[in-house]
């Protein structure tokens, strides 16, 4: 498995501002994902952030709203830009470890509330 940390763990932000969420992994991974989860509900994939290439966004998510950086094999950031109350959610990063197929390991999540 892997130890994955996220910062911040939670935040309350004003409408129109931006928040950058950090994801740190204790080992080198190629594949990293960002998800959004409404409390008590399932996960929706925002984008895939593989090191060495541009992030790939899922339908309904765009780079201008959710810019992603992946500077190295252990770190990534997701920015939620120009926030609105509809962006209130839990944001999770996950990784796939080398040689472990498609099994994903998740960070603890960042709970975002936009007022």
């Amino acid at each position: 498995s892997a130890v994955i940390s996220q910062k911040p763990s939670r935040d309350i932000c004003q409408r129109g501002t931006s928040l950058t969420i950090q994801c740190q992994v204790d080992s080198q991974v190629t594949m990293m994902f960002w998800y959004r989860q409404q409390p008590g509900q399932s996960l929706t994939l925002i984008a895939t952030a593989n090191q060495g290439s541009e992030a790939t966004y899922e339908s309904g998510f765009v780079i201008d709203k959710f810019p992603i950086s992946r500077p190295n094999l252990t770190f990534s950031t997701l920015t939620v830009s120009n926030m609105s109350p509809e962006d209130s959610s839990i944001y999770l990063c996950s990784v796939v470890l080398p040689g472990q197929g498609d099994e994903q390991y998740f960070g603890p999540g960042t709970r975002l509330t936009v007022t």
Partner: protein
Amino acid sequence: TQLLEQSPQFLSIQEGENLTVYCNSSSVFSSLQWYRQEPGEGPVLLVTVVTGGEVKKLKRLTFQFGDARKDSSLHITAAQPGDTGLYLCAGATLLNTGGFKTIFGAGTRLFVKA
């Protein structure tokens, strides 16, 4: 569009009872994972099933992958309050690019009363 239907969405049972959670799809998956998530934490991987008809046991939890690799079930025997949480199934499909795509079920919120 691939869909993974998970049922029931909510389950409240007494300690000691048995329960089964189902995930069904019309799509074939290369593998299927089950996760458990507690409030304030990320999902934790419980098991991966890969082979059609495969059955895996994890203490009181039994996971089964359908013969056609389109469906799966999670059976919990003698549920305990510590089993309370959100259970998620996730089906993975290999892509031509060499990567994979994972879709998640809607989740089953289980509450086990002491």
